[in-house]
């Protein structure tokens, strides 16, 4: 079974529009990480959320963690072609200090002019 579900699977938005990507866990979240992957490249760490209600921003990207819903949302404001890529969420669902992150399947974002 998939512990982390991302939605939508893919998204096409017009340049300048806002968008939201969701990541929902079937288990308790002890840490939630967002990564971006450009096509054919490795993953770049965006930000990490640990506490319920926490919100972080990096340039035009904002991520929030809803502890009660066990869900994180990634919001991009005024999207640009540079935002295109695959966004993956990773989570610590074991709180052991050693166990690696589990990842969602990713959301493929395309930004069109």
């Amino acid at each position: 079974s998939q512990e982390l579900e991302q939605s939508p699977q893919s998204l096409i938005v017009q340049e300048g529009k806002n968008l939201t990507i969701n990541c929902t866990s079937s288990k308790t979240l002890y840490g939630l990480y967002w990564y971006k992957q450009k096509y054919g490249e490795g993953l770049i760490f965006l930000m990490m959320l640990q506490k319920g209600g926490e919100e972080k921003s990096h340039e035009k990207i904002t991520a929030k963690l809803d502890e009660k819903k066990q869900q994180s949302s990634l919001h991009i404001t005024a999207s640009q072609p540079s935002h295109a890529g695959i966004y993956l969420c990773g989570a610590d669902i074991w709180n052991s200090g050693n166990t690696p992150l589990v990842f969602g399947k990713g959301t493929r974002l395309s930004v069109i002019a």
Partner: protein
Amino acid sequence: NAGVTQTPKFRILKIGQSMTLQCAQDMNHNYMYWYRQDPGMGLKLIYYSVGAGITDKGEVPNGYNVSRSTTEDFPLRLELAAPSQTSVYFCASSPFQGDYGYTFGSGTRLTVV
């Protein structure tokens, strides 16, 4: 540049052949990981290591072996390549679990024919 270096970037193997995917990091990170990424399937953990001399299986370890003789290196060995091992392989490292995201390599794209 500091980071995680993976070699080779691309490789085509014939069924039954063996190869080693190399991974090296120069950040003195204790934790290292191997993931595979199949289209639309996100990242699946193959093996991980919490320090030199210590390795553990992930979600999909069958057909692979690892070793961690030094802090810097974490090679992944495929003994008898099968078409099911066609994938993109990512190596990652982190100083420890917690407040830090993983640093990923740029990946190795492997095709088994």
